């Protein structure tokens, strides 16, 4: 999933990949008009309580702005790209055919001391696809998308590094959850939705939640994990379990239910406090129609929005288990009563 390009607004290819994974474990899969991939795993009873899971399948990337007189490509960003991560980065320009390219830079030998102290601005960067202007223009058009080219690697233990773990890690949690549910008895209908356009403003969550209008909607995204330059106290840590979101965006009973289940099954979890906007699909889910009880599970992740994001696979597996057991725990629960303040 992480090596398949899926830029915001251009999720078709990644959507097909995800669909293949979920097919054997689901009852129905549909795509809505914006491109959200809605995977339905039906529950046992006919009372049709609806649990909505959302993890976004889009990733940040770049877009062609101009082809210059020498055949180099000027670009802009799609989503929150840190321009400092782009120099010497490899990319794929998705023109009529995919073109390999490199984001070039001046050799250090001819840089002035002044230049070295400044960040190269994105508008001053260019992509080198190694072709003459005419050839480039034949294949590439303004508006073509550009994805970062990065192979996933295994780090020590169960840690991996890649681009786009934000939020393929979340999609993987839904996958683990649905797989678990196949072995369990659950009454609720579960809609696992791989949403589109989260990185540009939670847009997929807005439309997909509207249609389904669930009783509970839980977003699964990535959260900031602590690293040496970030303080430990308020950030979650890699490998110590998924972080359960808490704050105004999250229905307190959903938070309570998720953490209770984690304790009951002895699965590790952490807590993530959100004083306001969570910046996740949960933010959109909560205010759909007449309102939805929202939850948020974050997979701790280092170096967010770089091409070397790091996660611990155990956090993903544990999140899947907690989520599945939480859904099963709702079997005998009167949701009206549970979600009442």
């Amino acid at each position, binding site marked *: 999933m992480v090596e398949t390009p899926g830029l915001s607004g251009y999720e078709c290819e990644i959507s097909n990949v995800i669909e293949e994974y979920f097919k054997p474990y689901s009852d129905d899969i549909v795509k809505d008009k914006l491109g959200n991939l809605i995977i339905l795993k039906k529950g046992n009873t006919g009372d049709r309580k609806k649990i909505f899971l959302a993890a976004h399948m889009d990733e940040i990337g770049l877009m062609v702005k101009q082809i210059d007189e020498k055949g180099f490509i000027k670009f802009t960003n799609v989503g929150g790209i840190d321009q400092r991560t782009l120099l*010497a980065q490899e990319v794929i320009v998705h023109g009529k055919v995919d073109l390999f390219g490199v984001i070039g830079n001046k050799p250090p030998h001819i840089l002035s001391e002044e230049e070295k102290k400044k960040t190269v601005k994105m508008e001053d960067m260019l992509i080198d696809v190694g072709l003459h202007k005419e050839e480039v223009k034949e294949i590439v058009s303004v508006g073509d998308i550009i994805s970062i080219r990065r192979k996933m690697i295994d780090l020590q233990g169960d840690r991996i590094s890649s681009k786009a773990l934000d939020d393929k890690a979340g999609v993987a949690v839904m996958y683990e959850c649905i797989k678990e549910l196949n072995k369990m008895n659950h009454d609720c209908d579960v809609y696992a939705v791989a949403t589109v356009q989260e990185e540009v403003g939670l847009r997929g969550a807005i439309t997909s939640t509207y249609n389904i209008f669930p009783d509970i909607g839980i977003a699964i995204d990535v959260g900031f994990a602590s690293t040496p330059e970030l303080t430990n106290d308020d950030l979650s840590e890699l490998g110590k379990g998924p972080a359960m979101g808490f704050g105004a965006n999250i229905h307190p009973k959903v938070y309570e239910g998720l953490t209770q289940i984690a304790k009951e099954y002895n699965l590790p979890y952490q807590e993530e406090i959100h004083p306001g906007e969570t*910046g996740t699909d949960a933010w959109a889910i909560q205010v759909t129609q007449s309102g939805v009880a929202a939850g948020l599970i974050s997979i701790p992740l280092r170096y967010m929005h770089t091409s*070397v994001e790091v996660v611990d696979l155990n956090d993903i597996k544990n999140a899947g288990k907690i989520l599945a057991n939480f859904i099963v725990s709702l079997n005998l629960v009167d949701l009206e009563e549970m979600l009442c303040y």
Partner: protein
Amino acid sequence: MLLKRLTMANGVSGNEDEVRNIIIEEIREHVDEIKTDRLGNVIAIKKGKEGFPRVMLAAHMDEVGMIVRSIDDGGFIRFSLVGGIDERILVSKQVLIGKDRIHGVIGAKAIHLQDKNERNTPLKIKQLYIDIGAKSKEEAEKLVKKGDYVAFDSEFIEFGGNLIKAKALDDRAGCGVLIDLLKEEYDVEIYGVFTVQEEIGLRGAKVAAYNADPSFAIVFEGTLCSDISEVPEHSHITKLGKGPALSLMDSYTIFSKKLNQCIHETAVENNIKIQYRQPSPGGNDAGEIHLTKEGIPCAALSVPCRYIHSPSSIMSLEDFEGCKKTAKLFLKGIKKGEYVCE
């Protein structure tokens, strides 16, 4: 492909073993004598015919990279640069550490957590570290130790118009040329040298040239090429795809005019594209070679490389072949008594 093997080998200055082994294996059967000196330079000799001059040919084996300084309590690895790297290219890259090639990444604080000022300030080397996924200092120390060399993890890719992308093209391109040259037969004696530690001050070449006593030397390099839109024409240094480049003057050397003329003529006569490298900063092993003993006339014939000293350098295979061909024809064309030092 030999060039692929050469660029995928890791050989940060001071740690040229992997590259040296490939080179020795490649040239062993084609030379009369081969030895490794005290610093680690590989010296390969092909005997010539009576009355023909001795020619020194050099390419450096080392590449820029990093070295492990310390491991902190969380298992994160701090490092220093080896050779001239623009610090700004380090963020968001994969690296390989030590002989066992332990995977690591150089990350950065998420953009969401940066203030506006941070976004426009390059990260300093002291703010950067390598993450191998270890959970503690103890775990990291089992895999990585102080002094381990760190190289960029970068694939060899053929793309565009007969181009390749790889790390360490400076100077595996030159090594590739020299290996190929050593596989041919000549009338002149060839004193082939694959040097160490070029990137930290032309260290290997200094001692390798000492016993060579050649009539002249040619250095083969992957050299600066900044023919990109943001750089004005007068600072392009070389142009990609316009053939190998002959150096005129750099930070260390004024090159032999006579050698340049002869090599240039050879290329032109044989319809091989050739260009001059604009006089500009940078340097190569000639800086030491030409000042050895009473002095050695030097030329440098280089393959232009865009984005040099980064994990994603680019060169043209046509320039690479042109470099080999020009050098080969030039060496074969040297006549008895020509260039012999009195």
